[in-house]
């Protein structure tokens, strides 16, 4: 029985079988005897989530545009299918060829969130690939690589990967595959390949870096071997308007989380909110021209048949030609009966004209990220939004016919006091009062203010990378305080599980010693940690204990400015001096203007060799 028959024998026993058999429109099939390098692009979560990821769509098409490369997709099977796979010796396979991924040259993971780490181990294990890099064959095959935002501190994963790819993947992936192809033909082995790969800019080979620790647990020093660079610099695309963008997506049969065309309109962010990792690691700010955005939208809608398109970015309204861009897009989408959705709009530059444009497209809910309950705290985190701006935006929205607003906040931010927590409830109340004060408010509908409160997670490459996270007890106290402060039933409060946030903090800020914990937790049955029904915090705590590691050391300890941080040897083009400066400014409750107003000297312009805005 071949693998396809084996899979099909059991496929009807599982939920949503079309996730496991391929054959979707837009998937790329090649003759494997005619390709040089095979790449299994793995997303460490289920199909429904992984298929929504825009980065995977870009790199899938980009690699497949090369005739001699074949990139295929691979996702974590849901628990029902995993059980069947293990019982029937079905190894993890790629969806295009249905070949086992252990036969592939590259097994690449995209690391989008910390709570997907155990899934990587589970997938490697399901594939029949040794989970520890040191246990893999000396032959040149099965190179396990990772990219994505989490690899800005990949140390808790260092033992499992051969290579981390820092920054934007469009160029470096091809360079790496070309090098592999060349060396494979020369008969090189794994180590020889890794040595040469480490010389490519943006390529980090963790086994060439060694850490020693002080008695207090902090890093004593880092040493480099095999001539690998002391600092690995992330890769960026210089001409973003001309960067490769797919002309087609794989169109799934089953419904996925983001089941629509997404078009990337800009990369990076000018804002510099001090908690936000994405705002720093994706710098410099670059945008696509309205013309390019229009062409990519049209092309993708036509090729996929999707009737919905979403603009992807960190802050769409920061596009310098937003009005022109939207006019152009709406002309097309309205004519073709395509829905356009615009996530990531900011409160402060939300104009009446913009709202009119959005309304023409679709009337969905409005979401604002206020993040802090008081102006003082918003200044600390550099969320350059005033209450006036929030109010005036809500007023426009209510007058424009909206009756529900969703507000995002964070809890446990540096310098936060009870006043800030109560401030969240008060702000929500004032928005509600505003609604009732408006004479031409929508009639016949009850207003709803949804307050969604996340727990602050200190992240590497942010001014708050030095900060500690509130303990679980403190977060729970603050959550209760918030609930008690809300006086209206029209204000709905939801918040995150503090255990999840603590694990996120540990893994985000962790060092290499955590590899054992990740391994142990997985061995003890942890997987799908981002799914509340699968998250087993008690098992994680047991794993920490077994490994003799205190999670509080990583999550609840403040780091000194002069401490060697586990990610200091990785260069994301924004300097540590800048983060220290910003951290000090934060503690004075002083804001920093955004990049268009004034250069804050983060260092990215020096790294790129040009001014970000001229």
């Amino acid at each position: 029985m071949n693998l396809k028959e084996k899979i099909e024998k059991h496929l009807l026993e599982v939920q949503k079988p079309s996730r496991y058999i391929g054959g979707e429109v837009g998937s790329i099939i090649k003759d494997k005897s005619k390709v040089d390098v095979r790449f299994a692009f793995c997303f460490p979560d289920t199909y429904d989530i992984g298929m929504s990821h825009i980065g995977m769509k870009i790199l899938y098409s980009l690699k497949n545009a090369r005739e001699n490369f074949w990139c295929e997709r691979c996702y974590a099977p849901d628990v029902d299918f995993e059980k069947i796979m293990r019982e029937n010796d079905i190894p993890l396979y790629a969806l295009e060829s249905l070949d086992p991924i252990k036969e592939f040259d590259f097994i690449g993971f995209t690391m989008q969130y910390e709570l997907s780490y155990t899934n990587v181990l589970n997938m490697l294990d399901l594939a029949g690939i040794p989970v520890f890099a040191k246990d893999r064959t000396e032959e040149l095959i099965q190179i396990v690589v990772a990219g994505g935002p989490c690899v800005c501190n990949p140390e808790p994963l260092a033992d499992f990967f051969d290579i981390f790819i820092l920054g934007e993947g469009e160029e470096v992936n091809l360079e790496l595959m070309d090098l592999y192809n060349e060396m494979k033909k020369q008969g090189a082995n794994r180590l020889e390949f890794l040595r040469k790969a480490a010389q490519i800019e943006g390529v980090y080979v963790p086994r060439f870096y060694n850490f020693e620790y002080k008695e207090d647990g902090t890093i004593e020093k880092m040493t480099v071997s095999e001539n690998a660079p002391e600092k690995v610099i992330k890769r960026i695309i210089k001409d973003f308007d001309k960067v490769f963008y797919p002309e087609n997506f794989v169109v799934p049969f089953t419904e996925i989380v983001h089941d629509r065309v997404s078009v990337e309109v800009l990369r990076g962010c000018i804002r510099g909110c001090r908690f936000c990792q994405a705002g720093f690691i994706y710098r410099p700010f670059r945008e696509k021209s309205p013309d390019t955005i229009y062409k990519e939208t049209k092309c993708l809608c036509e090729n996929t048949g999707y009737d919905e398109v979403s603009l992807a970015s960190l802050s769409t309204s920061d596009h310098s030609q937003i009005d022109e861009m939207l006019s152009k897009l709406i002309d097309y989408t309205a004519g073709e009966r395509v829905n356009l959705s615009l996530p990531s709009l900011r409160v402060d530059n939300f104009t009446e004209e913009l709202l009119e444009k959005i309304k023409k497209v679709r009337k969905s809910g409005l979401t604002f990220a206020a993040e802090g309950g008081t102006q003082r705290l918003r200044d600390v985190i550099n969320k350059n939004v005033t209450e006036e701006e929030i109010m005036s935006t809500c007023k426009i929205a209510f007058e424009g016919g909206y009756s529900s607003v969703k507000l995002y906040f964070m809890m446990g931010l540096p310098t936060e006091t009870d006043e800030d927590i109560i401030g969240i409830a008060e702000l929500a109340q004032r928005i509600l009062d505003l609604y009732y004060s408006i004479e031409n408010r929508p009639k016949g509908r009850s207003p709803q203010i949804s307050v969604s409160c996340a727990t602050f997670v200190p992240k590497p490459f942010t001014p708050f990378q030095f900060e500690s996270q509130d303990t679980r007890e403190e977060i729970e106290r603050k959550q209760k305080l918030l609930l008690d402060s809300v006086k209206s039933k029209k204000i709905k409060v939801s918040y995150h599980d503090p255990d999840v946030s603590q694990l996120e903090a540990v893994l985000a800020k962790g060092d290499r010693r955590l590899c054992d914990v990740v391994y142990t937790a997985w061995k003890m049955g942890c997987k799908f940690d981002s799914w509340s029904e699968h998250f087993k915090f008690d098992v994680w705590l047991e794993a920490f204990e077994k490994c003799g590691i205190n999670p509080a050391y990583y999550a609840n300890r403040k780091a000194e400015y002069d401490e060697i941080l586990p990610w200091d040897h990785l260069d994301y083009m924004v300097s540590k001096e800048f983060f220290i400066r910003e951290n000090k400014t934060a503690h004075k409750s002083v804001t920093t203007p955004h990049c268009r107003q004034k250069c804050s000297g983060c260092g990215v312009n020096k790294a790129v060799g040009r001014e970000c805005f001229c």
Partner: protein
Amino acid sequence: MLRLRATFEKTGRAKYISHLDLNRCMLRIFRRSKLPVWYTEGFNPHPYYSFALALSLGFESSCEIMDFNITDDNMPLDTIKERLNEVMPEGMRIVDIAPQIQKITAIAKAEYTFDLKSEETDELFKAVENLLTSPEILIEKKTKKGIKTVDLKPDMDILCCEAVGDTVKMKMRLPAGTKTNYNPTLFVEALRNSCEIPFDMENTRRTGILCENNEKFS
């Protein structure tokens, strides 16, 4: 406006497309084809199309039926067929497009083929024959009003039942449409209840959608 009826195949990997997913899939097929398909004129306009009968997940079919309208009266039916087939996923193919003649309510029966695979083929074959010659074939069927016991026997036409190698090949006609709908899995379930022989049901395929007089629905 052309009121059309397409007959299409759903085979191979396409059998894993559920009925709900098929709806979404067809919407995208129409959009990719850029055919002048007629949109509904309600608050939320969408291309109009409707499937005559739902097909169970995992079943193949050579005769699925979908109605839709084309606003261009002069468009040749072959062109419509070609343009749809160009953008269909693997395993789905339009075999025929013709004007709608009968009303959907004329559908009364459907024809299925399937294989029963077992290591004890002879015993299984006997068990099938026993079941078929029994005075009634009772099985519990889930309906909207709850579980009720139905007798398949009077409404079931066996067209073929033969043992070939390790397989019992079956072909049967069952009621389908707006009044009564019997799925061949009901028969298989009844067979499982009547004997202890382990077997698998494989290669289930709908091979015909018929009217009361057993003529092809068109």
